[in-house]
Protein backbone atom coordinates (compact mmCIF):
# COMPACT_ATOMS: atom_id res chain seq x y z
CA UNK A 1 0.00 0.00 0.00
CA UNK A 2 1.32 3.40 -0.88
CA UNK A 3 0.60 6.63 0.92
CA UNK A 4 -1.21 8.05 -2.11
CA UNK A 5 -3.78 5.24 -2.11
CA UNK A 6 -4.58 5.85 1.55
CA UNK A 7 -4.87 9.58 0.89
CA UNK A 8 -7.36 8.87 -1.91
CA UNK A 9 -9.37 6.79 0.54
CA UNK A 10 -9.36 9.66 3.05
CA UNK A 11 -10.42 12.21 0.44
CA UNK A 12 -13.28 10.09 -0.86
CA UNK A 13 -14.47 9.39 2.68
CA UNK A 14 -14.32 13.11 3.54
CA UNK A 15 -16.31 14.05 0.45
CA UNK A 16 -18.98 11.44 1.19
CA UNK A 17 -19.32 12.94 4.66
CA UNK A 18 -19.47 16.45 3.21
CA UNK A 19 -22.28 15.39 0.89
CA UNK A 20 -24.16 14.05 3.89
CA UNK A 21 -23.71 17.25 5.88
CA UNK A 22 -24.99 19.31 2.97
CA UNK A 23 -28.04 17.20 2.18
CA UNK A 24 -29.28 15.78 5.45
CA UNK A 25 -32.46 17.20 6.85
CA UNK A 26 -32.30 15.59 10.26
CA UNK A 27 -29.92 16.94 12.90
CA UNK A 28 -28.87 13.41 13.84
CA UNK A 29 -28.04 12.69 10.21
CA UNK A 30 -25.77 15.72 10.09
CA UNK A 31 -23.97 14.55 13.24
CA UNK A 32 -23.42 11.12 11.69
CA UNK A 33 -21.97 12.69 8.56
CA UNK A 34 -19.62 14.85 10.62
CA UNK A 35 -18.42 11.64 12.27
CA UNK A 36 -17.62 10.23 8.83
CA UNK A 37 -15.61 13.36 7.99
CA UNK A 38 -13.64 13.24 11.25
CA UNK A 39 -12.91 9.59 10.60
CA UNK A 40 -11.49 10.49 7.19
CA UNK A 41 -9.17 13.02 8.81
CA UNK A 42 -7.97 10.36 11.25
CA UNK A 43 -7.25 7.94 8.42
CA UNK A 44 -5.15 10.57 6.66
CA UNK A 45 -3.15 11.62 9.71
CA UNK A 46 -2.44 8.04 10.73
CA UNK A 47 -1.37 7.20 7.19
CA UNK A 48 1.10 10.08 7.26
CA UNK A 49 2.29 8.94 10.67
CA UNK A 50 2.90 5.45 9.29
CA UNK A 51 4.77 6.57 6.21
CA UNK A 52 6.90 9.33 7.72
CA UNK A 53 7.80 7.38 10.88
CA UNK A 54 6.62 10.34 12.93
CA UNK A 55 4.27 9.66 15.83
CA UNK A 56 2.89 13.21 15.85
CA UNK A 57 0.32 12.04 13.33
CA UNK A 58 -1.03 9.56 15.87
CA UNK A 59 -1.01 12.23 18.57
CA UNK A 60 -3.03 14.42 16.24
CA UNK A 61 -5.47 11.57 15.69
CA UNK A 62 -5.90 11.18 19.46
CA UNK A 63 -6.77 14.86 19.75
CA UNK A 64 -9.19 14.69 16.82
CA UNK A 65 -10.94 11.73 18.44
CA UNK A 66 -11.37 13.53 21.75
CA UNK A 67 -12.63 16.68 20.03
CA UNK A 68 -15.11 14.66 18.01
CA UNK A 69 -16.44 12.97 21.10
CA UNK A 70 -16.91 16.35 22.81
CA UNK A 71 -18.73 17.60 19.73
CA UNK A 72 -20.98 14.54 19.65
CA UNK A 73 -21.86 14.92 23.33
CA UNK A 74 -22.88 18.56 22.95
CA UNK A 75 -24.60 17.82 19.65
CA UNK A 76 -26.71 15.04 21.14
CA UNK A 77 -27.68 17.32 24.02
CA UNK A 78 -28.78 19.88 21.45
CA UNK A 79 -30.77 17.21 19.59
CA UNK A 80 -32.62 16.29 22.75
CA UNK A 81 -33.23 19.95 23.59
CA UNK A 82 -34.48 20.65 20.07
CA UNK A 83 -36.81 17.69 20.20
CA UNK A 84 -38.15 18.79 23.55
CA UNK A 85 -38.90 22.30 22.30
CA UNK A 86 -40.14 21.54 18.79
CA UNK A 87 -41.11 17.85 18.89
CA UNK A 88 -38.91 17.05 15.89
CA UNK A 89 -35.26 17.29 14.87
CA UNK A 90 -35.72 18.71 11.39
CA UNK A 91 -32.97 21.24 10.83
CA UNK A 92 -34.86 23.26 8.20
CA UNK A 93 -37.83 23.84 10.42
CA UNK A 94 -35.54 25.02 13.23
CA UNK A 95 -34.37 28.16 11.47
CA UNK A 96 -36.24 30.71 13.54
CA UNK A 97 -33.02 32.31 14.77
CA UNK A 98 -32.28 33.34 11.19
CA UNK A 99 -35.26 35.64 10.94
Amino acid sequence: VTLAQLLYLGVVLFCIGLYGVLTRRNFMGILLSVEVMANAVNVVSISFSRFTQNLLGQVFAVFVMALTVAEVVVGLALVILLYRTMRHTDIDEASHLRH
Partner: protein
Amino acid sequence: MGNFMLELLATAAVAGVILAAAVSVVIGRNLVHSVLMLGVLLFCTAVLFILLEAPFLAGIQVMLYAGGVVTLMLFAIMLTRRSGGVAVSNETLPRRRVPALLLSFGLGALVCWSIHETTDFPVSAEVSRGTKQLGYILFTDQALSLEVLGVLLLAATIGAIVLARRRDYGESAQSRAYPYGVPVSEDRSS
Protein backbone atom coordinates in the same frame (compact mmCIF):
# COMPACT_ATOMS: atom_id res chain seq x y z
CA MET B 1 6.52 -9.23 -2.46
CA GLY B 2 3.86 -11.74 -1.46
CA ASN B 3 3.57 -10.00 1.86
CA PHE B 4 3.07 -6.70 0.11
CA MET B 5 0.31 -8.15 -2.07
CA LEU B 6 -1.41 -9.61 0.98
CA GLU B 7 -1.30 -6.27 2.76
CA LEU B 8 -2.64 -4.53 -0.32
CA LEU B 9 -5.52 -7.02 -0.60
CA ALA B 10 -6.42 -6.68 3.07
CA THR B 11 -6.33 -2.89 2.93
CA ALA B 12 -8.38 -2.83 -0.26
CA ALA B 13 -11.04 -5.07 1.28
CA VAL B 14 -11.24 -2.94 4.43
CA ALA B 15 -11.33 0.25 2.38
CA GLY B 16 -14.16 -1.13 0.27
CA VAL B 17 -16.23 -1.93 3.34
CA ILE B 18 -15.45 1.52 4.79
CA LEU B 19 -16.58 3.32 1.65
CA ALA B 20 -19.74 1.25 1.28
CA ALA B 21 -20.64 1.86 4.92
CA ALA B 22 -19.97 5.59 4.53
CA VAL B 23 -22.28 5.84 1.52
CA SER B 24 -24.91 3.91 3.42
CA VAL B 25 -24.58 6.25 6.42
CA VAL B 26 -24.99 9.29 4.24
CA ILE B 27 -27.87 8.30 1.98
CA GLY B 28 -29.76 5.79 4.13
CA ARG B 29 -33.40 6.53 4.84
CA ASN B 30 -33.64 4.89 8.24
CA LEU B 31 -31.71 6.71 10.94
CA VAL B 32 -31.15 3.62 13.06
CA HIS B 33 -29.64 1.79 10.09
CA SER B 34 -27.41 4.81 9.48
CA VAL B 35 -26.09 4.68 13.04
CA LEU B 36 -25.45 0.94 12.83
CA MET B 37 -23.62 1.47 9.54
CA LEU B 38 -21.56 4.16 11.23
CA GLY B 39 -20.61 1.51 13.77
CA VAL B 40 -19.46 -0.78 10.94
CA LEU B 41 -17.48 2.10 9.44
CA LEU B 42 -15.75 2.94 12.72
CA PHE B 43 -14.94 -0.70 13.41
CA CYS B 44 -13.46 -1.20 9.94
CA THR B 45 -11.43 1.97 10.41
CA ALA B 46 -10.03 0.39 13.56
CA VAL B 47 -8.97 -2.60 11.45
CA LEU B 48 -7.34 -0.18 9.02
CA PHE B 49 -5.48 1.43 11.92
CA ILE B 50 -4.11 -1.98 12.89
CA LEU B 51 -2.95 -2.47 9.31
CA LEU B 52 -1.27 0.93 9.56
CA GLU B 53 0.54 -0.16 12.74
CA ALA B 54 -1.38 2.06 15.15
CA PRO B 55 -2.80 -0.55 17.55
CA PHE B 56 -3.38 1.90 20.39
CA LEU B 57 -5.57 4.11 18.23
CA ALA B 58 -7.42 1.04 16.97
CA GLY B 59 -8.21 0.15 20.58
CA ILE B 60 -9.39 3.67 21.35
CA GLN B 61 -11.48 3.65 18.20
CA VAL B 62 -13.29 0.46 19.14
CA MET B 63 -13.83 1.41 22.78
CA LEU B 64 -14.70 5.06 22.34
CA TYR B 65 -16.57 5.13 19.03
CA ALA B 66 -17.89 1.69 18.25
CA GLY B 67 -18.70 1.17 21.92
CA GLY B 68 -19.51 4.61 23.24
CA VAL B 69 -20.58 7.03 20.55
CA VAL B 70 -22.74 4.59 18.60
CA THR B 71 -24.57 3.53 21.75
CA LEU B 72 -25.06 7.16 22.73
CA MET B 73 -26.45 8.00 19.31
CA LEU B 74 -28.84 5.04 19.39
CA PHE B 75 -30.09 6.26 22.76
CA ALA B 76 -30.55 9.79 21.41
CA ILE B 77 -32.53 8.49 18.44
CA MET B 78 -34.76 6.39 20.62
CA LEU B 79 -35.35 9.35 22.92
CA THR B 80 -36.25 11.71 20.12
CA ARG B 81 -38.02 9.79 17.42
CA ARG B 82 -41.71 9.61 16.98
CA SER B 83 -43.10 6.22 16.14
CA GLY B 84 -43.91 7.17 12.56
CA GLY B 85 -42.31 9.35 9.96
CA VAL B 86 -38.69 8.70 10.88
CA ALA B 87 -37.74 7.59 7.38
CA VAL B 88 -39.46 10.62 5.90
CA SER B 89 -37.91 13.18 8.22
CA ASN B 90 -34.50 11.64 7.72
CA GLU B 91 -34.69 11.80 3.96
CA THR B 92 -32.16 13.95 2.19
CA LEU B 93 -33.47 17.14 0.65
CA PRO B 94 -34.01 16.58 -3.08
CA ARG B 95 -33.43 20.19 -4.08
CA ARG B 96 -30.05 20.23 -2.35
CA ARG B 97 -28.79 16.98 -3.80
CA VAL B 98 -27.34 18.25 -7.06
CA PRO B 99 -25.42 21.27 -5.68
CA ALA B 100 -24.12 19.20 -2.78
CA LEU B 101 -23.04 16.44 -5.15
CA LEU B 102 -21.31 18.96 -7.39
CA LEU B 103 -19.56 20.65 -4.46
CA SER B 104 -18.33 17.49 -2.77
CA PHE B 105 -17.34 15.88 -6.08
CA GLY B 106 -15.53 19.04 -7.12
CA LEU B 107 -13.63 19.23 -3.84
CA GLY B 108 -12.76 15.54 -4.06
CA ALA B 109 -11.57 15.86 -7.66
CA LEU B 110 -9.46 18.89 -6.76
CA VAL B 111 -7.72 17.18 -3.84
CA CYS B 112 -7.32 13.91 -5.77
CA TRP B 113 -5.72 15.85 -8.61
CA SER B 114 -3.27 17.49 -6.22
CA ILE B 115 -2.44 14.09 -4.73
CA HIS B 116 -1.95 12.77 -8.25
CA GLU B 117 0.41 15.61 -9.10
CA THR B 118 2.52 15.14 -5.98
CA THR B 119 5.45 12.88 -6.67
CA ASP B 120 7.76 12.94 -3.66
CA PHE B 121 5.73 11.00 -1.12
CA PRO B 122 7.66 9.37 1.71
CA VAL B 123 7.78 5.64 1.09
CA SER B 124 9.27 4.36 4.31
CA ALA B 125 8.11 0.83 5.02
CA GLU B 126 9.80 0.33 8.36
CA VAL B 127 7.69 -0.55 11.36
CA SER B 128 6.95 2.59 13.31
CA ARG B 129 7.75 2.91 16.97
CA GLY B 130 5.04 1.63 19.23
CA THR B 131 2.51 2.67 21.79
CA LYS B 132 5.14 3.27 24.44
CA GLN B 133 6.66 6.05 22.40
CA LEU B 134 3.21 7.48 21.73
CA GLY B 135 2.49 7.65 25.44
CA TYR B 136 5.87 9.24 26.04
CA ILE B 137 5.14 11.98 23.49
CA LEU B 138 1.63 12.54 24.85
CA PHE B 139 2.83 13.07 28.40
CA THR B 140 6.00 15.04 27.75
CA ASP B 141 5.99 17.14 24.58
CA GLN B 142 2.23 17.37 24.25
CA ALA B 143 1.37 17.40 27.95
CA LEU B 144 -0.09 20.90 27.86
CA SER B 145 -2.32 20.07 24.89
CA LEU B 146 -3.47 16.95 26.67
CA GLU B 147 -4.44 18.91 29.78
CA VAL B 148 -6.29 21.50 27.71
CA LEU B 149 -8.10 18.64 26.01
CA GLY B 150 -9.12 17.28 29.41
CA VAL B 151 -10.54 20.65 30.41
CA LEU B 152 -12.41 20.81 27.11
CA LEU B 153 -13.96 17.38 27.67
CA LEU B 154 -15.02 18.40 31.17
CA ALA B 155 -16.58 21.59 29.83
CA ALA B 156 -18.37 19.64 27.10
CA THR B 157 -19.75 17.20 29.65
CA ILE B 158 -21.01 19.96 31.93
CA GLY B 159 -22.47 21.81 28.95
CA ALA B 160 -24.28 18.70 27.76
CA ILE B 161 -25.75 18.09 31.20
CA VAL B 162 -26.93 21.69 31.46
CA LEU B 163 -28.43 21.63 27.97
CA ALA B 164 -30.18 18.32 28.25
CA ARG B 165 -31.59 18.90 31.71
CA ARG B 166 -35.31 18.64 31.58
CA ARG B 167 -36.26 22.07 32.76
CA ASP B 168 -34.61 25.14 34.19
CA TYR B 169 -34.91 24.67 37.93
CA GLY B 170 -35.54 28.35 38.43
CA GLU B 171 -36.19 30.35 41.55
CA SER B 172 -39.97 29.99 41.48
CA ALA B 173 -41.64 27.71 43.97
CA GLN B 174 -43.53 26.00 41.19
CA SER B 175 -40.46 24.84 39.34
CA ARG B 176 -39.03 23.54 42.59
CA ALA B 177 -42.22 21.71 43.42
CA TYR B 178 -42.58 20.23 39.93
CA PRO B 179 -39.09 20.00 38.46
CA TYR B 180 -40.44 17.91 35.58
CA GLY B 181 -43.24 20.32 34.77
CA VAL B 182 -46.67 20.78 36.22
CA PRO B 183 -48.71 17.59 35.87
CA VAL B 184 -51.31 17.96 33.15
CA SER B 185 -54.03 16.11 35.01
CA GLU B 186 -53.98 18.57 37.90
CA ASP B 187 -57.24 20.41 38.36
CA ARG B 188 -56.26 24.07 38.29
CA SER B 189 -59.73 25.56 38.73
CA SER B 190 -60.07 24.48 42.33
